[in-house]
């Protein structure tokens, strides 16, 4: 696989991760997925549902962070000079 195709592949992986995050957030907002990591106890001072919601939000933020790092890597990889070409150019000179 040439470099251009590889960088495109990496960029689209990052975009896919971002897309997954959006889809998950939309499913939570529409009520299809209800964050229920810690089951509610039913007590008066029950903060378990709040913790579940906040934890889900933090997980999505981590996903956004990871996908931006992947996108950054894809961009950096695209702009890096080719390692194979450099020695050939030096030899020619």
């Amino acid at each position, binding site marked *: 696989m040439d470099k251009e195709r590889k960088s*495109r592949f990496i*960029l*689209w992986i*990052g*975009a896919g991760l*971002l*897309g997954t*995050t*959006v889809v998950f*957030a*939309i499913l*939570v*907002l*529409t*009520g299809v997925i*209800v*964050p229920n990591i810690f089951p*509610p106890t039913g007590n*008066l*001072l*029950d*903060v378990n*549902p*709040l913790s579940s*919601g*906040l934890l889900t*939000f933090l997980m*999505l933020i981590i996903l*956004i962070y990871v996908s*931006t790092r992947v*996108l950054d890597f894809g*961009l950096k990889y695209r702009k890096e000079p080719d390692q194979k070409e450099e020695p050939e150019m030096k030899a020619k000179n």
Partner: protein
Amino acid sequence: MFVLKKLTEILYKNAGLICFVIALGFLFFGIFNPNAFPNFYEAHSGNPLFDGKMTVLLNEILWFLFCFIIMLSGDLLYFHRKDIKKLSTDKSQPDALHFCFIGVIIIIGTIVYLILLLMDIVNPIQFFPNVLFAGEETPMDLSIIFNALLFFLFISIPYRIGEKFIKYGLKIGDLK
């Protein structure tokens, strides 16, 4: 590719301006009709004074936050319209236009959902029924605060991601 570019340009220019105007309209409507806010969430502690004040305050804050997000989105789209015009349609940067297009679609989707919320057509999700911080004399239902907070946090995710798609689209196109 040319059609996609034209479509993206049109979306950036028109959607940005329309969103800004709509958000201003909702904002002025809210300022002059403070009693017309839809009740996104209601407090149910049984203490009428607390419930009344908390419900009005939280719903007003949510209303202004939603208007603010719509205005920010309109602003973002409108001020990037010139960058989109500069994007090339040739094969050297094929992903830039796609990224910008996905970004604008996500942001417009968020805006449409927010407008439906402000018009009280869609109901916001209730994350949990009640978190009751109960005292013998002053029972207070704080679930309304947590619900509103979580709802705002989750709404902000599609906006952030749309913004990131646009940012990286412009970076791929060497415009930023």
